[in-house]
């Protein structure tokens, strides 16, 4: 494999690019039906939630909602509330980072 790494990287780039480009290329000049528009309008919420679920609820592949050992889950609450309240992404991100840092500092878990 080691000798083929550049080839692997080029192929990885190719298979990554097609899904990013083809829908934009084909759909952007087309009129979409109201149903298609309604469906697409839910994609951001659905995809963000789908990415977040396992990241927040699981730890090392197992369900973990114990606040004392899963800072990612616990920190999600202040992050969400502050973001909802301020409507400012930067403040939301800083709240999240700060919460995790404080949880690790005071609760003593390192995870």
């Amino acid at each position, binding site marked *: 494999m080691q000798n083929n*790494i550049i080839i692997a*990287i080029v192929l990885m780039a190719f298979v990554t690019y097609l899904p990013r480009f083809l*829908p*934009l290329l084909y759909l952007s000049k087309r009129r979409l039906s109201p149903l298609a528009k309604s*469906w697409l309008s839910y994609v951001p919420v*659905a995809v963000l*939630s789908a990415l977040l*679920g396992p990241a927040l609820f699981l730890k090392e592949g197992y369900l973990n909602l114990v606040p004392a050992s899963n800072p990612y889950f616990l920190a999600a609450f202040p992050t969400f509330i502050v973001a909802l309240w301020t409507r400012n992404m930067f403040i*939301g991100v800083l709240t*999240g980072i700060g919460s995790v840092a404080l949880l690790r500092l005071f609760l003593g878990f390192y995870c």
Partner: protein
Amino acid sequence: MGKNFRESFYIAFKDGATRSLPIVLGYIPIGLAFGILAANVGLNSLETTFMSIIVYAGSAQLISLGLIESQAGLFTIVMTTFLVNLRHTLMSAALSPHLKHLSRLQQAYFAFELTDESFAVHSRDFKGETNPVAIRLFTTNTLAHLSWVSGSALGFYTGALFTNLESWGIDYALPAMFIALLAMQLDNKRKYLVGAFAMLLSTFLFILPVGHWYIIIATLAGATAGALLDLRQERKV
């Protein structure tokens, strides 16, 4: 070039740069992690930065390092990358109605820098906006891309210096950004329902496990549920 052009260019550039800040904040530490791991796996500096430039997909790049380390074949690496990144199809489709005004070449470049994070920022900003200024879009995307590449290179060369990022909570930057962007998307009750549904479903699928399909399946199911709720609402009215 006249003064007006320069002025509006500057305004759009500054606007784009401001919007890229949260992405940059998340990409530098993850890029560092990628660079450190790439060096450990045995990639050279050219391969490491080249991958970050032309693939530009965090999770797929990190997964590929694991596969390279375990001596996986070319087919496995490319196929896994394809599956992991297939979710971008949906993001590309969702942004397409807002990018009609771009030329083909501009669309091709925009797609090259379409990531989870750039998608989330743009889809937030495109609500109620028509024909967003191209310079702003490309400034946000390109600065994010640059921060990813520089993070990777920095990690490769200075990896040993950055071992304590976790105690600062920096590893939470990307989840926090997704949470904040999700909060900003939630402008009606149906979206809360769709979000909760997709979140639980993807967690369930992840445990099952269905390999890397969990994001795509949960997104398709979530968007379909949302569209069905819209249809039902229309019938009622």
